[in-house]
């Protein structure tokens, strides 16, 4: 430990502590500019100068970069200190007179205006004050070395090599985070189309808790966006985490489990309405999908549950368009089943939360669940404009009064028998539920077939709704077809019960289908041995005959038809049975 005094106050700190830290420990404030908690001190700005004397010899030094010494006497408010600091701040202010952080420092030190103005003074409020934080964070913390000081003396600038786009920049935004004046901004300069920028469905930080309901409810590091995993640097989270819970050495682990039952519940994906140009999704920021509306409406969403247009104002009118990409021969012919009900819910919530006029454009209102029709009936009395007709188009060219600056939904009102133009502020597209993009390949892994869309096919639509053609593989939820939450839960429970049935039984009941080898007829040619895809045919060396292991046999019959001496019989599909059947169909 080292003993020193700060402004006459005795302090005891660990060896190697900076004077700034020592002062902080007894709440003595020393102004700083270039200093930053996570950066190593580099004493560039000189704002933190103090008077320090050891053995009666005084000097002016920077508090951020100098460490304490035994018997040191530090003066942070002495005349000499203040005079020195004032010179430093005056010079800074003369170069950048309008930067708020410098003006504040000047004010604290009684400097009313810059004593003189440099020829190369920069008057922007967010001017770069050359503090160097960004350079240090980029090289020492991030490890990307994308920006550095260029030029000399008062011509020094911070830039990428030759001021061009640097391939070393990983766009992490650390420089912008540490910049004290806001001079560095992270912008999307390639002008990507941003759809409703208020709605951010994705994670915004490499460290995050996946969802609010996540189990375990703990943050994890997304290695794809984490700076450390790109450059090997940073590790800022490790520094700031007091319990030391951050561990970069952990790697993704793969576990192999041997199981007897598998439930496939891979769900659905939402149809992307971008190809349906007539609705302008992706072009007009206020045309959003049901899922995006749901995110916005969520209390933990980006707008804290407020229903807002892209300009941040609540909509005065809003249209909900059913059947986008479903019940449509050009996209998906099936009905997505859940959209009518959630559209009704949206209409109800919009009425509840805003003053907006709500238009609900439907082909048919499909409310076939328990309590669903009653809900629809309730909404009929909630002053919602129901229009029977599929929304045909969303356009922005005003033709009539009141259409300026609005999205105009064109629809054939089939009950009124007229074409209508409805000006609204926001359009919600009830996009279809679709199978996962890789549903077909995924199902094939488990020997489960899919229909032409990619929904998994059950063993029997009525009698075996969660079983599949593969024993022990069950399906549940939207992987099997579009369905709502109650149906999904019911099917999930059923699939779990089917799986448990196998577990509890502890044994597998075989169906009576398998192949049998007749010892007397088998010549021991072993043709069948290699044919069996399950390795169920074992050759008995002693008796020189092949034998079928019944538990392994799946009864395909390939060996039966291949046996040259007709020694193998497939139960329930014997040659005699099939030939008798043949006789039957030919008679």
């Amino acid at each position, binding site marked *: 430990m080292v003993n020193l005094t700060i402004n006459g106050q005795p302090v005891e700190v660990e060896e190697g502590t900076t004077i700034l830290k020592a002062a902080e420990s007894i709440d003595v404030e020393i102004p700083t500019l270039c200093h930053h908690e996570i950066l190593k001190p580099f004493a560039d700005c000189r704002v933190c100068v103090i008077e320090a004397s050891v053995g009666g010899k005084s000097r002016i030094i920077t508090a951020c970069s100098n460490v304490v010494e035994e018997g040191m006497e530090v003066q942070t408010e002495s005349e000499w200190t203040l005079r020195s600091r004032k010179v430093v701040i005056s010079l800074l202010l003369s170069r950048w007179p309008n930067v708020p952080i410098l003006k504040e420092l000047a004010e604290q030190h009684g400097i009313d205006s810059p004593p003189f103005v440099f020829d190369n003074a920069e008057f922007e409020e967010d001017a770069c004050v050359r503090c160097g934080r960004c350079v240090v964070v980029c090289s020492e913390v991030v490890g990307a070395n994308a920006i550095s000081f260029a030029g000399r003396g008062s011509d020094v600038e911070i830039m990428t090599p030759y001021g061009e786009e640097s391939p070393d920049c990983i766009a992490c935004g650390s420089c912008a985070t540490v910049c004290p004046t806001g001079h560095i901004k992270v912008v999307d300069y390639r002008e990507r189309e941003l759809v409703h920028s208020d709605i951010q469905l994705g994670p915004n930080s490499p460290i995050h808790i996946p969802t609010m309901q996540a189990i375990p409810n703990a943050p994890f590091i997304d290695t794809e966006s984490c700076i450390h995993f790109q450059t090997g640097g940073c590790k800022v989270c490790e520094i700031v985490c007091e319990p030391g819970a951050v561990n970069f050495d952990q790697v993704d682990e793969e576990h192999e489990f041997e199981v007897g039952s598998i439930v496939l519940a891979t769900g659905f994906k939402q149809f992307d309405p971008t190809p349906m140009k007539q609705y302008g999704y992706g072009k007009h920021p206020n045309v959003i999908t049901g899922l995006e509306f749901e995110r916005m409406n969520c209390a933990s969403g980006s707008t804290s549950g407020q229903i807002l247009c892209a300009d941040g104002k609540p909509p005065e009118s809003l249209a909900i368009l059913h059947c986008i990409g479903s019940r449509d021969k050009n996209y998906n012919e099936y009905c997505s089943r859940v959209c009518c009900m959630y559209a009704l819910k949206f209409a109800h919530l919009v009425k509840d939360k805003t003053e907006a006029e709500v238009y609900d454009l439907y082909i048919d209102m499909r409310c076939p669940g328990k309590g669903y029709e009653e809900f629809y009936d309730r909404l009929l009395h909630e002053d919602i404009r129901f229009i029977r007709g599929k929304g045909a188009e969303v356009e922005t060219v005003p033709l009539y009064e009141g259409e300026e600056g609005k999205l105009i939904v064109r629809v054939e009102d089939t009950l009124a028998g007229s074409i209508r133009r409805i000006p609204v502020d926001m359009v919600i597209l009830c996009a279809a539920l679709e199978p996962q993009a890789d549903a077909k390949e995924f199902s*094939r892994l488990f*020997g489960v*077939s*899919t*229909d*032409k869309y990619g929904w998994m*096919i059950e063993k029997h639509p009525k009698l075996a709704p969660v079983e599949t*053609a*593969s024993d022990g593989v069950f399906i549940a939820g939207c992987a099997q077809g579009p369905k709502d939450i109650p149906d999904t839960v019911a099917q999930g429970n059923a699939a779990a019960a089917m799986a448990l049935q196998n577990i509890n039984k502890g044994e597998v009941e075989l169906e009576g*289908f398998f192949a049998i080898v007749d010892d007397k007829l088998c010549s021991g040619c072993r043709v069948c041995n290699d*044919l069996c*895809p*399950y390795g169920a045919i074992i050759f008995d060396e002693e008796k020189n005959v092949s034998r079928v292991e019944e538990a392994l046999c*799946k*009864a*395909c*019959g*390939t060996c*039966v*038809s*291949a046996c040259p001496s007709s020694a193998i019989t*497939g139960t329930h*599909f014997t*040659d005699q049975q*099939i*030939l008798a*059947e*043949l*006789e039957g*169909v*030919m008679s």
Partner: protein
Amino acid sequence: MSFEPRIVGFLCNWCSYTGADLAGTSRLEYLPNCRVIRVMCSGRVDPTFIIKAFAMGADGVLVSGCHPGDCHYIEGNYKTMRRIPLLRNILEQFGIDRDRLRLTFVSASEGELWAKIVNEFTERIKELGPLGMDKVANPTAEAEAEAVATGA
């Protein structure tokens, strides 16, 4: 009376039979000439069955299994894919047109494809005309029948 071919279809339980089932439950209309025999796998179709079918008077035989790579029994349909061309060579030596035996792949979701295949195959067999192998294969039976009919 126009010629109505008799066609025997050997369909695997998991893909083609289910696909044909789908054609039925989807109420698809297609020609009624194909009579279906269900086997667990197209690999179960013994070439003997096909020859027997022709011998019994079938004008065409359709064998249908899962798509390559999709076999419920991993590779049963590959075995069939090897057997059928060999069998066609033999049939040709007997004077039976190659086109009278066809191997197709129909998945459980392809009801429409199954209907299309049956229609196409039936049309092709109609073009080829009756095979009449039952008369060649069972002369004694016919002779006997004739004998019975004439009361000799």
